[in-house]
């Protein structure tokens, strides 16, 4: 396998529905409206619903993250092949049962259409179907790294069955396929990007090198690396080497 090349096959989801189980075809996705696993004792509920960005004037808890759905098919993060869903994205929101919001510095709870700007690099496209995962903690929770990581992890676990089905889909049936090569330009000035990211505590952290693109499992917290600089290739970045916990 050429370790300089990353192929991303994009499957365009035209039809996203709620049903009894996970099921995916080349153009459609069915998901349950709640996790099929036992949720953590600290949680009261995890509710999942589908949202149309063009019709979303309703109240939400603070937006913890916006997450793409992608999975490794061959190789590791940064090379080989990944299958990715387009036309669908995930918004994770969270609060406790009394309404205390899960955030570090400023909350985005309120009406969804007023609290997010669609069609940016970090937010869903207004043509997407949004999978809104709303996590409610029991009221006696402790706001610390472990609790927040558990919330992000629960959302990741909910998404994993989608990735498992997506993993075995044939790239030939993808709507689009992108090939990214690590191209060198000898003789040109050498340029690097330095990204300074959060690394101080609960909701102020980042995970790197999870097993799945934009995933959590096996990821390493930047805090646990004492915030030391690490080098990532452009393809690792494009392939979801980072999961934000901010």
């Amino acid at each position: 396998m050429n370790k300089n090349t990353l192929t991303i096959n994009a499957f365009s989801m035209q039809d996203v529905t709620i049903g009894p189980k996970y099921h995916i075809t080349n153009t459609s996705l069915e998901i349950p409206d709640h996790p099929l696993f036992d949720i953590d004792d600290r949680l009261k509920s995890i509710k999942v619903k589908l949202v149309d960005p063009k019709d979303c004037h309703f109240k939400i808890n603070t937006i913890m993250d916006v997450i793409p759905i992608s999975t490794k098919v061959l190789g590791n993060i940064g090379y080989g092949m990944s299958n990715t869903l387009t036309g669908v994205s995930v918004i994770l929101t969270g609060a406790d049962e009394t309404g205390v919001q899960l955030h570090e510095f400023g909350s985005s709870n309120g009406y969804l259409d007023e609290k997010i700007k669609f069609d940016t690099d970090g937010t869903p496209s207004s043509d997407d179907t949004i999978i809104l995962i709303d996590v409610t903690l029991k009221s006696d929770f402790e706001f610390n790294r472990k609790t927040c990581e558990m919330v992000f992890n629960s959302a990741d676990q909910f998404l994993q069955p989608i990735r498992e089905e997506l993993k075995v889909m044939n790239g030939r049936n993808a709507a689009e396929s992108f090939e990214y090569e690590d191209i060198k330009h000898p003789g040109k000035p050498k340029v690097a990007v330095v990204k300074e990211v959060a690394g101080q505590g609960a909701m102020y952290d980042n995970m790197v090198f999870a097993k799945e693109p934009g995933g959590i499992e096996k990821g390493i917290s930047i805090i646990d690396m004492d915030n030391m600089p690490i080098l990532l290739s452009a393809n690792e970045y494009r392939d979801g080497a980072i999961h934000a916990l901010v």
Partner: protein
Amino acid sequence: MGIGPSTKETTMHHFHDPLVRVVASDPDVDFQGVILVGTPQDNYLKNLVGRRTAFWLEAMRTNGAIISADGWGNSDVDFINTMTEIGDKGISIVGLKFIGKQAGFVVESEHTKFVLDINKSKSGTETEIVGDNNLNEKDAHKALGLLKLKMRKDGQVPK
């Protein structure tokens, strides 16, 4: 202070990162990669991670770098300190962060004038709208353009 809703980079933002997209695909530069560095609480560690970042870039024989951050306030200390450490190695450095009318630098240095503001809101404030003040492709092009000029001025490339 820290990272507010309108500047925070979501997992989706990192996945589509406009700065990586723009710099990695420019044929006029030899792109080396992304150094990811955290923002520790402790002052000793703040200085240490800045120094370690500069050592990496020096060992990579980097001519120029763009530093970006999604937070403001206390993290300015890390930001300017890391810029200074990189600049002291003779590497051209420009920055991108949220300033607006709300987030003037907590600390200033000779490098602050090479930091571009990513604010997009009319009010120049943390609007608490997710995605509102994020770095976008236009910001990335501006920063890369500025870096190219600075590298020329600093004698990194033959005139």
